[in-house]
């Protein structure tokens, strides 16, 4: 790892240390007994430690480490998505294709850096293959709905998430060998935007921004979180190939997309009558609860960077 990467991880470690300290102080001041909001905050902070350590560990192994990490992330996300979306017995071949063919193939293509195929593999080839497989069973009940669900799950959990490691395939002049930092920048900005929206909302939130979709999100949280995260993204321009103002604009873009992603994924959860996608990350819910914003930010970020810099 080069100096910038170490500096970045040291910074994140310091931030988490501060968060843990605040969480501990809040708990100490509140006294013994369960405090739902504070306990959840501390669970979230602890989960962040684990997530940062896992990402740091993957970074140690470079390109391969990151591709394998996001393969696992996509697997868990796809599994959460498919578990919550009802399919019928005749969808079995399509689901087998999703888990055992599309998922490994997408990451293999990213591993070998074949942009021409990984960019269209799921949106074109799987888009056509899945309904073909589903039709084999001869079951027409809610056919369009069922095939759409499998396709949508693949797009969100595999295609969109795989745009993060796809950043490694970009060849940016003057930025050779540092693409891992671009991933770090994207993940930091999107996630810190989520965290700051949560913090600003808890501290100053009064007006609900989308009461039907996501009752915990507030106008104050949205503006405060996005503004602060944009500022942080801009001031981290030194780890990116961008100038200060470019980093700022990109940060604003991914924060807005991330926010919208949170709302869309929340609409799906509410329609299915659940609060969380899963239970694997203590305090956060499932993998998709943590990554809903990344799903929407990563593909657009990847393609724009590739268009102007790649």
């Amino acid at each position, binding site marked *: 790892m080069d100096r910038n990467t170490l500096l970045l991880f040291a910074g994140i470690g310091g931030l988490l240390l501060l968060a843990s300290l605040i969480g501990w102080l809040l708990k100490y001041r509140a006294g013994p007994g369960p405090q739902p909001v504070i306990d959840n905050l501390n669970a979230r902070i602890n989960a962040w430690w684990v997530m940062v350590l896992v990402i740091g560990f993957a970074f140690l192994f470079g390109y391969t480490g990151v591709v394998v990490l996001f393969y696992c992330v996509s697997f868990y996300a796809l*599994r959460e998505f498919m578990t919550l979306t009802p399919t019928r017995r005749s969808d079995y071949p399509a689901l087998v294709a999703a888990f055992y063919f599309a998922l490994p193939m997408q990451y293999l293509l990213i591993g070998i850096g074949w942009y021409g195929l990984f960019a269209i593999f799921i949106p074109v080839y799987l888009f056509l293959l899945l309904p073909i497989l589903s039709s084999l069973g001869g079951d027409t009940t809610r056919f369009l709905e069922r095939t759409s669900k499998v396709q949508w799950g693949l797009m969100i959990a595999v295609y969109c998430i795989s745009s993060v490691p796809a950043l490694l395939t970009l060849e940016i002049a003057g930025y050779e060998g540092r693409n891992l930092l671009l991933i770090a920048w994207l993940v930091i900005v999107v996630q810190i935007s989520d965290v700051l929206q949560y913090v600003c909302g808890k501290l100053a939130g009064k007006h609900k921004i989308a009461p039907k979709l996501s009752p915990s999100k507030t106008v104050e949280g949205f503006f405060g979180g996005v503004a602060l995260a944009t500022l942080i993204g801009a001031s981290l321009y030194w780890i990116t190939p961008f100038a200060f103002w470019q980093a700022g604009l990109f940060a604003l873009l991914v924060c807005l997309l991330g926010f919208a992603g949170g709302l869309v994924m929340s609409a799906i959860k509410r329609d299915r009558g659940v609060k969380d996608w899963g239970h694997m990350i203590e305090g956060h819910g499932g993998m998709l609860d943590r990554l809903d914003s990344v799903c929407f930010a990563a593909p657009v970020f990847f393609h724009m960077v590739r268009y102007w810099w790649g």
Partner: protein
Amino acid sequence: MLASLIAFFITSAARLLTGARALWLGSTAQAVQRIYYANHSSHGDFVLLWASLPAELRKRTRPVAGSDYWMKGALRSFLIQRVFNGVLVDRQRSEPSSNPLQAMLDALEQGDSLIVFPEGTRNMEDGLLPFKSGLYHMAKARPDVEVIPVWIANLNRVMPKGRALPLPLLCTLSFGAPLGLDEEEGKDAFLERARNALLALALEEV
């Protein structure tokens, strides 16, 4: 040795594949003698229920299985007898004089807990089939043993009938409150109550 190694491998694989999240909604995971009864939609049902119990409970909990299916072939009979320590019952009643319940009552007599599927066969539709009466007779014979409903959600999607390759979807097992048999309660009323208690858990899932 080999059997317990295989048991470890199978339960780990089942948990890894399905996440096997156990929700103790009306009871806790205590080492009390129990009859767990569950919905039956896949051959993996008892494996998953067995795997989701804490190790110390698992040691004393035995699945009840049909000998017509499980005694066919050396591998199956090794698995059910040595690995899962199953209680085999004769569903066909090949000898009219034999009481198919006797094997289960014997196991209860030894202090073991049981896993039973009162629908009697795998159910391919939603909901539950009518219950067989065995559950009632056991509850009546052994009122000291807790009867606990367990709803297994999603496993029929993980391993659909007739498919070899399982799908890695998440499964949840909801353990309900012990039923208890009322003094006056007849067979049909008890079975109806047991069936409704299990269906109620299905609605509570997620």
